[in-house]
């Protein structure tokens, strides 16, 4: 399948079930809301070593937030509910509670309720108070700029992590341009985040390693450095730079929509801009229950 000169591989991305929550972070102005959201979603590119994958979903205008202040919504994904609870407490405690003027609210109502401000309240050393408004409990913790308000709980829902696209391009400039365009298109959609730096990962991995201690290692089939050296390369003389975009979403449909948006953005640039091929990463379909076939995604909306 070729669109605008870009070959779409007959392959699929393989994704896994995750647990996720959405938090709404508000502040006195957008700058400080962003400082808190950036910090809270920092070092959260991969569950392999970060504990969770997190990112900013979108900006919220004052009329979209519970307290009428500007804010951002962030999504956090973990492999288990237990780990997610730990990450919420650490990240909100160290990055939102600490950030001037912020408040934090649950961004999802339905699902298993887990602690948000419930444990952070003890920072108040006995001066914390709670307030139940319209059936929702909020904690008010005295801090040096006034008080930190946090909803008592947030809801954890089932989610999908690990949707991806591999963009095979002529050179670094073309690969970056295609990846940036695809990420920008995906960011316009709700319920998804691209957790890697700038939404893009250049160190795609395969399962397994020659070293027994490692469960994953560099995806040599897509490394241009190894073209001609490894037994089986996916590349050729033209595809000399590859970028991957990883997508976590609240539902399978959200991930599929983001992948489709990324495909469209890449195709729009086309071979003329140096994007030659779009592929996807998988493990033979044995590991993840969610399979996103690129050709099916292309067919879904045409």
């Amino acid at each position: 399948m070729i669109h605008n000169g870009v070959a779409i591989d007959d392959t699929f991305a393989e994704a896994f079930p995750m647990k996720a929550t959405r938090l709404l972070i508000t502040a006195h102005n957008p700058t400080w809301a962003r400082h808190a959201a950036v910090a809270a979603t920092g070092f959260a590119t991969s569950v392999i070593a970060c504990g969770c994958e997190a990112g900013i979903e979108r900006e919220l205008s004052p009329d979209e937030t519970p307290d009428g202040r500007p804010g951002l919504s962030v999504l956090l994904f973990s492999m288990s509910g237990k780990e997610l609870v730990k990450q919420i407490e650490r990240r909100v405690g160290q990055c939102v509670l600490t950030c001037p003027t912020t408040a934090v609210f649950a961004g999802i109502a339905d699902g298993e309720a887990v602690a948000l401000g419930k444990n952070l309240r003890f920072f108040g050393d006995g001066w914390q108070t709670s307030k139940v408004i319209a059936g929702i409990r909020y904690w008010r913790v005295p801090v040096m700029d006034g008080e930190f308000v946090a909803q008592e709980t947030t809801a954890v829902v089932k989610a999908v992590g690990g949707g991806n696209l591999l963009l095979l391009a002529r050179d670094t400039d073309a690969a970056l341009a295609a990846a940036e365009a695809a990420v920008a298109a995906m960011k316009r959609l709700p319920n998804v985040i691209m957790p890697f730096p700038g939404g893009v990962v250049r160190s795609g991995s395969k399962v397994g390693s020659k070293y027994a201690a490692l469960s994953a290692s560099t995806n040599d089939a897509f490394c241009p450095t190894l073209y001609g050296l490894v037994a089986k390369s996916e590349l050729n003389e033209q595809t000399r730079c590859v970028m991957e975009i990883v997508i976590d979403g609240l539902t399978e449909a959200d991930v599929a929509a983001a992948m489709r948006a990324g495909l469209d953005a890449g195709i729009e640039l086309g071979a003329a801009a140096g994007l030659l091929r779009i592929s996807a990463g998988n493990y033979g379909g044995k590991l993840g229950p969610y399979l996103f076939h690129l050709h099916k995604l292309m067919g879904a909306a045409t």
Partner: protein
Amino acid sequence: MSVRLRLKQAPALRLDLRGIVPAALAGLDAAAIERLPLAQGRQALALAEFFDVVLGGDGDTVAFEGDLSRCDRIGWQLAGGRIVVEGSAGDHAGAGMTAGELHIHGNAGLLAACEMAGGQLVVEGNVGDFAASAQPGSLDGMRGGTFIVRGNAGERFGDRMRRGTVLVFGDAGDFFASRLVAGSIALGGRAGAHAGYGMRRGSLVFAGAAPTVAPTFVPAIAEAPVIWQLLARDLARHGGPFADLAGRRVQRHLGDVAAGGKGELMLVE
């Protein structure tokens, strides 16, 4: 099925209407409802002695018609369904209710909503003393739900209340929210003397005239814009003197310092 109970005439002695709730009347025919016992003093008399029973209509509603100001404990421990009083109610209206809705078109007597734990109670008229408070001898007053008084409230309103949301559109008597443990009370009119006397926690919102603040309260130098917006927006849903709260600023006083000082008076400017 809905049940309408039409009071034949005002009872000579006070009448206890506990137990006449939608769940208890469900599935009963008119004759069975007429035989239900009602306590009057030491006597148990059949409901038909006092009320005409009319069945009909969908829903889970019990409607009382007439002046029931001598009928006490309407909606006592109500746990679901809807009760409408198309007139005034006696004492203990909605006391101990945990869910459902009680709507009183007239006034309510003493101890309305006392120890209410859930659901919604609306009184279109006035309420007597000790509304939203505790039963005599009990440590905790109202502990959940929403209580709306569109008229005025008597004295000791919200005494020992510990949770829930209350709105009084009119004025309140002396010792408004005395010994409040927690919860939120908003007042549209003016409060009598000693508002918030001995309150431990909780928020009192004065949307109308500012009360006399006791010397056991300290003025807050820090603003609390987030919780004010959350609270004001919720109160604004009920309209009246609360409709524009979210757009107004508040001056807070913290106290009662004589009881820990974790409560607040929010004086709307």
